[in-house]
């Protein structure tokens, strides 16, 4: 019996060997840039005007106060509108407001006039009272983003009272209805970045009567003022949005948007090639091939507002990289000069990231385009290592780099480890799952760790205050435990200034002061890359746009060009 089995297994194993080696001989990747791939992909526009988008997951929630992930954000932002929105240059512009708000000279009072005649998709016209109600909902217990209204006068008290009273929209004194279309928001104290909160989908206007009628089910039957209306939602399978013909900026050119949930990227790609999707997010292996193929014009790429970094815990006892001694600072600088970011961004991550030149990525106000990206300079790194007291790395203890299991992290970590080893800096690698990893970095456990930051709004304050202000040490975002009174002072001063240029100048000063201290290994800025069919017109993504979600794309202008078929 056992002999018989063995013989079969030997035969089977030869079969497997043969079948595996055969494709191995043909599928070679050429290293030259002149190679052109021939990709079979159907790109005939469909005549029904439906724009089809693949999703990795079912959007968890479409009620604006519950939206806290990019998938939900992408769908909800087509159904709802906010007071303000971004133009293609990521400057704020009025949306449901007639104009930008009048801000009082002390920077605490924001006066809005609401656009007249805008209607919810069920027919009723919007009023200032709807905005008051919608903003107050963010203070309720169910809200996932109460922090967005916290700067408003009386909001903290409302959040507190809602916790005991379970009220859905507790009264907030700082939000006043001055007339049918007049809204005034008063802040506790000047906080200039507050205005960006009014462009986030969480602050979108919702109709009170429908929210109260549906209760928790509003998240499944969302109604807003947006360019599209939710028509059908098969949980975990698909969502169909229909165009809103009465949209206040004009009826959409598309008839609708169909989302289909397909968690497997390779399956998405096959469907895209078969002509079943108009767009798809680029995953491993797609970009190098498609950008050198007959379909290169379908690759669309733009910088996203993200930074990837390896932070040093500056307060970690026993870490040679901690503290503000000259030796520790030189060590941190040496680490920054030892890493081949070009390889990481262009080769390993296939252009989905590129070398960072600081903290603020392009697209963020105040990004310094003149500062060169951090170079690879092993000679200088070795010199710094010696100056720090570790010539050739002698005597330098190995610290562990902590990172979480997802995505490309392990690849990047191994490459960085090898780069550092070449210079003489030893590090170990420690891989954790996301939950355990976050918990330990918040608690300041690792002395060297990987993290990234995605902008909530395109303002330097969103990076510098959260990641470097000493009051935000630990779970609030400053996990490097960076503490520099000069930087704190610059950030604090920027809150009181409503003049944008002046604010940005202060924050730029803060950024360069931080850079001088090397609290991070500054690694990479992000880039979003998608495939999009050539017949799609007016799809204009910005840095605030997560791949195919198309947040802040002007969806009512997006068009499927049917010229060829008419």
């Amino acid at each position: 019996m056992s002999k018989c089995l063995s013989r079969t297994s030997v035969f089977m194993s030869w079969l497997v060997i043969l079948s595996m080696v055969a494709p191995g001989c043909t599928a070679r990747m050429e290293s030259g840039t002149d190679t052109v791939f021939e990709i079979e992909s159907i790109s005939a526009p469909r005549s029904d005007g439906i724009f089809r988008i693949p999703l990795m997951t079912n959007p968890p929630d479409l009620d604006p106060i519950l939206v806290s992930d990019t998938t939900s954000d992408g769908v909800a932002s087509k159904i709802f509108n906010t007071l303000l929105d971004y133009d293609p240059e990521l400057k704020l512009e009025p949306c449901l407001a007639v104009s930008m708000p009048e801000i009082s000279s002390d920077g605490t009072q924001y006066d809005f006039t609401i656009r007249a005649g805008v209607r919810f998709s069920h027919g009723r016209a919007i009023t200032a009272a709807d905005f008051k109600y919608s903003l107050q909902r963010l203070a309720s217990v169910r809200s996932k983003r109460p922090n967005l209204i916290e700067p408003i006068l009386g909001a903290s008290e409302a959040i507190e009272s809602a916790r005991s009273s379970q009220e859905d929209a507790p009264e907030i004194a700082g939000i006043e209805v001055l007339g049918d279309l007049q809204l005034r928001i008063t802040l506790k104290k000047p906080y200039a970045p507050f205005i960006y909160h009014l462009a986030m989908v969480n602050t979108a206007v919702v109709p009170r009567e429908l929210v109260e009628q549906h209760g928790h089910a509003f998240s499944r039957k969302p109604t807003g003022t947006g360019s599209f209306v939710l028509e059908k939602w098969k949980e975990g399978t698909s969502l169909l949005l229909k165009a809103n013909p009465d949209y206040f900026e004009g009826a959409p050119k598309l008839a609708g948007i169909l989302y289909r949930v397909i968690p497997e990227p390779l399956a998405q790609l096959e469907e895209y090639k078969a002509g079943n999707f108009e767009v798809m997010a680029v995953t491993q292996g797609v970009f190098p091939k498609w950008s050198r193929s007959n379909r290169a014009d379908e690759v669309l790429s733009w910088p996203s507002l993200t930074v990837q970094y390896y932070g040093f815990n500056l307060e970690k006892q026993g870490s040679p990289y901690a503290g503000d001694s000259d030796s520790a600072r030189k060590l941190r600088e040496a680490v920054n000069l030892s890493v081949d970011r070009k390889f990481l961004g262009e080769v390993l991550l296939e252009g989905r990231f590129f070398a960072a030149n600081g903290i603020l990525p392009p697209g963020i106000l105040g990004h310094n385009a003149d500062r060169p990206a951090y170079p690879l300079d092993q000679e200088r790194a070795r010199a710094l290592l010696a100056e720090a007291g570790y010539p050739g790395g002698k005597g330098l203890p190995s610290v562990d780099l902590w990172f979480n299991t997802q995505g490309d992290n392990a690849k990047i970590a191994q490459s960085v480890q090898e780069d550092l080893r070449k210079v003489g800096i030893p590090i170990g690698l420690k891989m954790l799952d996301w939950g355990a990893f976050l918990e330990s970095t918040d608690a300041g456990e690792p002395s060297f760790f990987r993290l990234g930051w995605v902008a909530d709004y395109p303002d330097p304050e969103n990076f510098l205050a959260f990641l470097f202000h000493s009051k935000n040490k630990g779970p609030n975002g400053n996990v490097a435990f960076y503490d520099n009174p000069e930087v704190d002072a610059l950030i604090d001063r920027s809150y009181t200034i409503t003049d944008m240029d002046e604010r940005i100048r202060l924050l730029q000063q803060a950024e360069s002061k931080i850079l001088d201290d090397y609290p991070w290994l500054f690694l990479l800025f992000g880039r979003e890359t998608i495939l999009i069919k050539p017949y799609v017109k007016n799809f204009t993504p910005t840095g605030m746009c997560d791949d195919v979600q198309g947040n802040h794309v002007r969806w009512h202008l997006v068009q499927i060009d049917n010229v060829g078929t008419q």
Partner: protein
Amino acid sequence: MTATNRGRSPTQMAFKRLRRNRLAMLGALVVMMVTVLAFFPSWLVPSHADGAGPYGFAEQFRGAHEYQQPPGIPGHPLGTDELGRDVWTRIVYGAGISLRVGLVGTLVALFIGLILGSIAGFRGGRIDTLISRLTDTFFAFPSLLLMIGILAVFEKPNEIVIFAALGVVGWPGVARIVRGQVISLRGSEFVLGARALGQSDTRILIGHVLPNCLGPVVVVSTLMIAGNILAEAGLSFLGIGLPPPSPSWGRMLVDSKEYWVDMPWMGIFPGLSIMITVLGFNLLGDGLRDAFDPKMKD
């Protein structure tokens, strides 16, 4: 010239049968080859002037554009991976990990299994019931889940943790076989003889009973080594085995997952290594089983 009229012990006869079994000898050859890889990796990999060592990074791989190259380019018989590491170097160093995990994991299981199994079989009664039910309990756990549970307790699993996990999962199989053997030998004449000479239980167990159970134990351990190599690969594939940059074959496989369309060699070679090694141990184990089977004729 013939040895026919010389008496032979059952073990000698078993090895003779084994030598005649070609598949088993093929298995033994594979096992020997893997052992050579594992113990003398530096003989078999290209120079590492840059101190590449176990990570398998190719010398100056970035300058020379040696990353992501197919098999056969100079210096890299099996190609390079996404980071530019030599696949052959990693496979050779990975053999050490696989063999260590296979052997030591099995030894741990043997250690626990031999002790508990022989006590249960020899003592019988309540102790037997207790140990047998414990064995059943461990058998009832899905082994992969149990190992994941054990590894999850440790934030940074190293080889020792994996040895322990494999031992905890593997011992019930050994214990059950040993117990059966001990029970059948317990009443045999040489045990009675030893007892009549006044030997202690421990001495009888170690000196007379256990040596006579070794045949089946050797068979089961050989097969267990193969199972352990697979288990380590599976754990690494799930991302809870040895952390990067360790060149474990399972980890190499999982790293190759997203590249299999463009760089199939990244997955083929570690996959083949796992398959051939496991097959080798299985063939050898099967051969040993046949050889030690008293019903088999010369």
